[in-house]
């Protein structure tokens, strides 16, 4: 508190005051979070860059020649990668956004199903999800093809095609779009649309001219995230693409990382290529989002979200919801449950049904490390989700609200972990913390650091789009009312962005359960996690046991998420559903 008396004091006293201001909560928290985020992101990035440009005789760019030159077919792979990633991102965006709109804005039936439809695909590890779709849509043994053949006289579905890949990846990603867009729709003043409807515009026109443009920052953010994630994902291209020779960039990275001795330079060159694409994406999304101020749809004028009455369309929308739910949840989970009851996968038949048993579940529960792994995974999931969302809430505040120089760089930096292969991240962290005096290596902390790093980009997107939508006046008014920065942050900013923050929290909680590539390098005896357990069953060929674990995991996470929603509902904007 400065008043006229201190103001008149000589310079020395003012210096003291300056110091006090420097150590204010705001400075400490903001600088702390920026430093932590910067550090988390820079460590792996630094090692990546260093490994890429260091050869036997010092600096070199030969890694790029190895990665992209010669017979690497890099152009073709880039094309495959882009087609796959763009296709999957767009499919997921359309599905997720439509679903979010119906859920938030209409009086659709079956609202409860949205919850499951939005989460279950996330929970199922990609490797199981893709495998489930092989069993559903394989040209030879696919169950759906079996059902369709007598009806239309052909076996139309082929999971092993670019469209198949886009389909499976798109369905698997749709929950990200759903979670991001639900937050955006909840935050948006429906009167902006209503006023357009009143002025005589058709519903479709309002959607195109008002809704979509207003949601542009959230849409762009979601597309970017899903696009880059598809680019760097390997499970779906690995399981579905290779069969017919559809190679993508990550097939190459996988190949590089498993041949010996590992060519880190080459892997780094690919990762940097992806990073360049991602960075271009971040900058482009900044451009596309335009002047953030124009999109502040949470203003201080309160609004009452009133659901649009679907009227005669209601049964059709309801039917569409059921179809979507069936495709994304019932079918894949059904296949998993079915598989989990068998000794080995075989198409449904009388013999197969007779051989069903709960043996796999019994075995899963008796695995020696099952309980430890579950406990550690829950700890890490909750811990990293909380840490990431807090850090990214503060950092996106810096990026969205201040004019701090370097904030764009910070944005790109916080996005970079998304393209860093998990193994490279794991190696970098092990390198740093093996040499750190702090007891981090060999404990759960190193896994927490790894997860927090990997999920920074997601936290940034969730927190960032929530922050962008919030009118600055809501904070300013708290300030003028006498609230300190921390009070404003805690009592105004966090609650008002809570829908987005909770969505991000849940997302990170869920995906942290399946993080494998760095976990496997960084865990220590006694510090096992579920994903390691799953990987082991996979390596050991126990696919049916794996399916059982997958089913159990879905059940556990659904319960966890329900609890989170219950807690979260008490914090933020009240919603009517």
């Amino acid at each position, binding site marked *: 508190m400065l008043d006229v008396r201190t103001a008149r004091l000589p310079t020395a006293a003012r210096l003291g005051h300056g110091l006090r201001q420097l150590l204010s909560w705001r400075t400490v928290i903001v600088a702390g979070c920026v*430093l932590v985020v910067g550090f988390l992101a820079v460590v792996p990035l*630094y090692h990546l860059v260093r490994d890429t440009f260091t050869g036997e005789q010092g600096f070199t760019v030969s890694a790029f020649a190895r990665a992209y030159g010669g017979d690497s077919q890099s152009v073709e792979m880039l094309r495959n990668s882009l087609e796959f990633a763009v296709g999957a991102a767009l499919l997921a965006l359309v599905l997720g956004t439509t679903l979010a709109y119906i859920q938030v804005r209409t009086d659709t039936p079956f609202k409860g199903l949205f919850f499951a439809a939005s989460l279950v695909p996330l929970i199922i590890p990609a490797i199981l999800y893709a495998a489930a779709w092989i069993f559903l849509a394989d040209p030879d043994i696919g169950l759906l093809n079996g059902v369709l053949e007598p009806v239309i006289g052909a076996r139309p579905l082929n999971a092993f095609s670019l469209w198949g890949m886009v389909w499976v990846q798109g369905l698997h990603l749709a929950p990200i779009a759903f979670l991001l867009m639900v937050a955006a729709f909840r935050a948006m003043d429906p009167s902006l649309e209503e006023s357009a409807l009143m002025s005589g515009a058709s519903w479709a026109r309002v959607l195109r001219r008002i809704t979509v443009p207003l949601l542009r920052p959230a849409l762009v953010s979601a597309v970017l995230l899903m696009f880059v994630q598809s680019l760097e994902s390997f499970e779906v291209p690995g399981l579905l693409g290779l069969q017919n020779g559809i190679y993508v960039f990550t097939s190459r990275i996988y190949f590089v990382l498993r*041949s010996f001795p590992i060519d880190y330079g080459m892997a780094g060159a690919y990762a940097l290529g992806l990073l360049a694409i991602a960075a271009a994406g971040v900058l482009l999304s900044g451009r596309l989002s335009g002047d953030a101020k124009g999109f502040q749809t949470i203003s201080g004028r309160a609004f009452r979200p009133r659901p649009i009455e679907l009227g005669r369309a209601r049964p059709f929308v309801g039917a569409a919801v059921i179809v979507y739910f069936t495709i994304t949840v019932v079918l894949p989970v059904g296949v998993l449950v079915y598989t989990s009851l068998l000794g080995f996968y*075989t198409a449904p038949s009388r013999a197969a049904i007779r051989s069903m048993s709960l043996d796999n579940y019994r075995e899963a529960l008796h695995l020696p490390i099952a309980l430890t792994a579950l406990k550690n995974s829950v700890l890490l999931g909750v811990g990293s989700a909380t840490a990431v969302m807090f850090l990214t809430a503060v950092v996106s505040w810096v990026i969205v609200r201040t004019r701090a120089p*370097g904030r764009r760089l910070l944005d790109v930096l916080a996005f970079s972990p998304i393209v860093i292969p998990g193994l490279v991240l794991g190696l970098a962290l092990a390198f740093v913390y093996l040499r750190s005096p702090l007891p981090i290596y060999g404990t759960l902390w190193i896994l927490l650091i790894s997860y927090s790093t990997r999920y920074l980009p997601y936290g940034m997107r969730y927190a960032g789009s929530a922050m962008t939508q919030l009118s600055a006046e809501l904070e300013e008014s708290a300030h003028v009312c006498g609230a300190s920065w921390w009070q404003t942050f805690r009592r105004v900013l966090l609650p008002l962005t809570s829908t987005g923050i909770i969505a991000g929290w849940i997302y990170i909680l869920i995906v942290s359960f399946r993080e494998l590539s760095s976990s496997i390098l960084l865990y220590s005896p006694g510090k096992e996690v579920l994903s390691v357990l799953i990987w082991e069953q996979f390596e*050991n060929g126990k696919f049916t046991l794996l399916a059982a674990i997958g089913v159990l995991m879905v059940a556990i996470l659904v319960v966890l998420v329900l609890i989170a929603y219950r807690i979260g509902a008490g914090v933020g904007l009240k919603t009517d559903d």
Partner: protein
Amino acid sequence: MRTKSLIIAIVLTVAGCGGSVTSGGGGDSGGGERSAANAKVYERLGALTGSQRRSQMIQEAKKEGQVTLYTSLTDDVAGAVTKEFTRQTGVKVNLFRGGSETVLQRILQESDARKTGNDVVETNFLEMATLGQRGLMAKFQGPALANVDKTGQFDNWTATRFNIMLPAWNTKLIKAGDEPRSWEDLASPRFKGKLTMELSDDDWYENVTKYWLSHGKTQAQVDQLWKQIAANAKVAKGHTVMGQLLSAGQTGVDAMNYTYLVQNDIDKGAPVSYRGADGTARTPAFPRPNGVGMMKDAAHPAAAILFYDWLLTDGQQALVKEGLTPSTKVPGDNSLKGITLVPYDVQGLVANEKSWAQKYDALLRGVKQVGGGG
């Protein structure tokens, strides 16, 4: 707020204090007092014979209390094996499991940082060879070595088990008698579109190629065969997925799968096989060795040599019980019944794995081959 860019600069500097994760530790990382002390323990205990050997080892290991094992054995096998070890010796095992590359990376990183975390390691030959070259492991002596074939004995490590490489097929889709009887058979037109190859099987590719070249084929013939095989095949990732798809009838033939994985499915009643109707496999099988080694820098040297010794003797039985193929003759082991083994080319792969991996990758991607052999 102007300080932000400064902060970022600081972060960059801080992060810059690290070195490269890939820099090798060189041969000197085993140096130091502990390594010298351990050498004496290894020598002393290794020289013992008869019943005194085991009892002395157990006595000293119990004093150390525990042993830390890094391995690529999977959960169930590792769990069963270590449990049996503890039951027989009373020494507790700390277990780290991971892929063989992960095990290697972890050990290299820890030894670079002078924080060796494990006492013993058990993993794939390629990684074991690297650890041996880096001089991180101590030489083992003992009568147990006599049970292991010469091809399974290396400077600083010893083979413990084999992954047997053979074609596998779905017995419903491939009629008896139509199954592949040799590696050349995979090129046959009768497998057109029915064959699946795995993304990372470059060591198999190397072994088959060298086998052909040493059995009278010219480079051109070999190239031609591979071209035909690749033309017959789809590509899959992961031997497990391949096995599942084979059981489910999605594919007819796995060009190569590990017999223990296939056997696992057979035991559950899946319609798959790697032996013909007469119970023999005509195709020459390559046994890929996995081995055990003990660390020069081990924190528990007596326990380390005890585990090494045990794994090559009583432990072999435990491996058989889990369906693996042991490196010594074990009564009751049927995993090699009807199978003709041919030598697996460890040396060639240790020297040249990378270039073979690139060739295999190129073959699968349909890139035009230049030259070949090597």
